[in-house]
């Protein structure tokens, strides 16, 4: 499975770069992630709980960074084992380039799954991966830019906010 996308982030490349290499930011941004330890030189250890279709599992895996061009490009590769659910592995090449609004982040992801995940989830794995990537970069954008601006830029976020408001108003009226 392969996918590519770009994001424009309203922050200078140096900030974006620092955020990518920060385990705390990664933990906040990876959907379902409960723990990230390690550093850019030794690699990271991550624990992620996710549900793919009928398969829910906690993946523990190692993430390594390689092919680093400081401030511009990094290759992230990792493999997570989900016990009975099987495994997921893959890599992403992330590139940063300065644009007038801040930074253009582009990524090419290649991922493979095996075991139950492949047998039961293959139909939905592409959509799932796309959603994971979207969620990650939404959160990443939010983490780097700050929450206020995200509400303006993200339709999904705004809708969710309104829904909440609607619900809250009904409760008190």
């Amino acid at each position: 499975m392969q996918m590519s996308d770009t994001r424009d982030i309203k922050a200078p490349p140096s900030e974006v770069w620092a955020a990518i290499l920060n385990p705390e930011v990664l933990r906040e941004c990876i959907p379902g992630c409960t723990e990230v330890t390690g550093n850019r030189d030794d690699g990271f250890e991550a624990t992620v709980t996710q549900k793919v279709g009928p398969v829910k599992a906690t993946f523990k895996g190692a993430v390594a960074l390689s092919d680093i061009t400081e401030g511009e490009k990094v290759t992230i590769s990792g493999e997570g084992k989900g016990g009975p659910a099987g495994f997921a592995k893959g890599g992403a090449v992330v590139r940063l380039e300065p644009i007038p609004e801040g930074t253009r982040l582009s990524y090419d992801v290649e991922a493979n799954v095996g075991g139950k995940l492949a047998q039961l989830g293959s139909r939905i794995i592409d959509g799932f991966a796309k959603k994971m990537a979207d969620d990650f970069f939404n959160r990443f954008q939010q983490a780097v830019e700050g929450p206020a601006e995200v509400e303006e830029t993200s339709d999904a976020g705004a809708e969710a906010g309104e829904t909440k408001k609607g619900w809250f108003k009904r409760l008190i009226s």
Partner: protein
Amino acid sequence: MPKDTGIGASTKRREDIRFLTGKGVYTDDLSLFGQAHAVMVRSTVAHGRIVSIDTSEAAGMPGVLAVFTGEDFKEVGGNPAGWFIKSRNGEPMREPKRPVLAHGKVRHVGDAYACVVAETYAQAKDAAQVLADAAVIEELPAIIDMKAAAADASNRVHDEIPDNICFDWGWIEDNRAAVDAAMKAAPHVVTLELTNNRLVPNAMEPRASIGEYFPGTGDYKLTTTSQNPHLTRLLICAFVMGIPENKLQVVAPDVGGGFGSKIYHYGEEAVVLAAARKLGRPVRWTAERTESFLSDAHGRDHVTKIELGCTKEGDILAIRTETLANVGAYLSNFSTATPTFLHGTLMAGPYKVPHVYVNVKTIFTNTAPVDAYRGAGRPEATYSIERVIDKMCRELNLDPFEVRRRNLLTPDQFPYTTPVGLVYDTGNYQATLDKAIELGDVAGFEARRAESAKRGKLRGMGLSTWIEACGIAPSHLVGVLGSRVGLYDAATVRVNATGTISVMTGAHSHGQGHETVFPQIVAEKLGIPESSVEIVHGDTAKIPFGMGSYGSRSLAVAGSAMDRAIDKIIAKGKKIAAHMLEAAEGDITFADGKFSVAGTDKAKSFGEIAFSAYVPHNYPLETLEPGLEETAFYDPGNFTYPAGAYICEVEVDPDTGKVDVVSFTAADDFGNVMNPMIVEGQVHGGVGQGIGQALCENTSYDENGQLLTGSFMDYAMPRADDVPFYTVDHSCATPCTHNPLGVKGCGEAGAIGSPPAVVNAVIDALHRGGITHVTHIDMPVSPNRVWQAING
């Protein structure tokens, strides 16, 4: 008038009472005192080197009794291939050892490399996961695509086999030059490349095995989901475990479907026996549905290029094929026979085609083993032939019915020796074709098509005239062809003192209806009620011998053995009657359940003879042994050759590509029919599976060897609304000339003849709808593929 009992009666299936009311007893239903539970640890990668398996943590977990890996079975034998095939260049096929548990390498997703036995299933499952997490398996590039596998000498499923080719087989090699010449000289040549899609058998009951060991006597017992307990015992004893055959009892109780997948011996059976021996306790294992998808032997998976040389009028002059057949990661027991002698020998079809040459290369890949599945090789042959003939009709603008008529063998040509090594004993292919045309109301098709068109649907009609070779098998012939065992069968007919009868048959019934049909034959021959006859099957301790049920052989081979045993019973009954009636043996006749002295009214009933055979007051012990029990073996003189004509009508929705099978007519010649209702049911089931293959089912591995269709969410089984109400006929019977019952077998027919009829109908619908650029769509002809073809 239809009979209501005996041969030819539609006696209701007595086994259905227990099957339909939940009273069947399947392997997993058995609960044994002190039993332990086994869980297999299976590879999640398609191809990998086993670096290390640390079993210590798993072994120490709560309830865990034993842990096994491939290392524990290093010294025992491998699970062998039953047929030996030589390549065109005379080299023997490559036969890598198939270990009980993977050792050194794992070769497909689902390949079991360890087993955990624990007090409870949950404990075994937990420990299996811990073991899997502790195993270090270095993933290697997966070998999935057959063409790539054969072209790449560096990446090998088995390290000792450089090009992943098991054998390169030519049939018949001596015909090759003549076929090439005939093809060259032919006024027209049709070429078609097609895929026969890989299928997962999906028996309703997953595989299960229970091993027992009795330390007091050193006896073993294996209860298992097998179509042939004697064959399983033979394989385990003689090849894999080295247990003396008289120390292992194999029982196959009620078995919920097999379709071929339960012919074979699987490693799990050896593991539970070894575990039982080690622990001195019964050890049980039942596959989860996902394990069945991953580890049952799959079916089909051929990629074929077929060429047909013909005249402009549609006379077939020559057929030449090149096939790549996937055998998967290991050679399953019949895997080398299926793409060769069950496939190449059928490549002349029911036609008078003078020149045929078949080339098959079998390829190892990192996928589950592939072996015989309902039809086994014959559906692949039939599909290739019937599709290419259909293409010929389109290219030359010929009527498919007329083309069949031109080329079908005629009744006066039997016995007919084909150019691919078989002798068809009898048949009347024109009769079944005419019957199908009549019952399928071919004359009314145009009106139905117009009606469909009003609803925006494209209606098409597809024809297939098929033949198969079954009743497996004449031992001498299959010996010449490479089978390592003869394939005769045995039956013991035991008449009890009170006149009831137990028939011990080597055929195993796992849905076919033997328990109903075999008594019909006994009752007919002995003039006693069907209810007085009981069939005993599936237990090596009770039955003298048998090669099991597959290849539509139960009635033709095991039934014939039973028929012979009954003849022996009658012969002995006459001796006893002669004594009791004080007449000469030669004067005794047997009819309607009575032994009579010819020309007199002196007679004894069958029951009286039986009684005096066991508990005589006055019996010539000096000259005649008491008892009334006879065993007979039967080795068929030839294959049987059922044949028929199938007409399928479909409606295609041009907007969505969805295909609906709106009618299906099957006119078959199965020889003599013992129970019409059961035959009809067999055809329904077979055609249903054929429609499943044609429209729904596909087994998909990704490039890494992950099985993408590993559950019923992604693997499309045919459902009730995918199949029509069938029109089935078997009145055009030409009885088999060489077995005593005149039967030909009907179990596989539907699955053999139907896929090309369906696909031909789809192509026909598109062409009649003006979509003439589509010449072929590979199975399964799913809405997506049809839509792509229409819009491509």
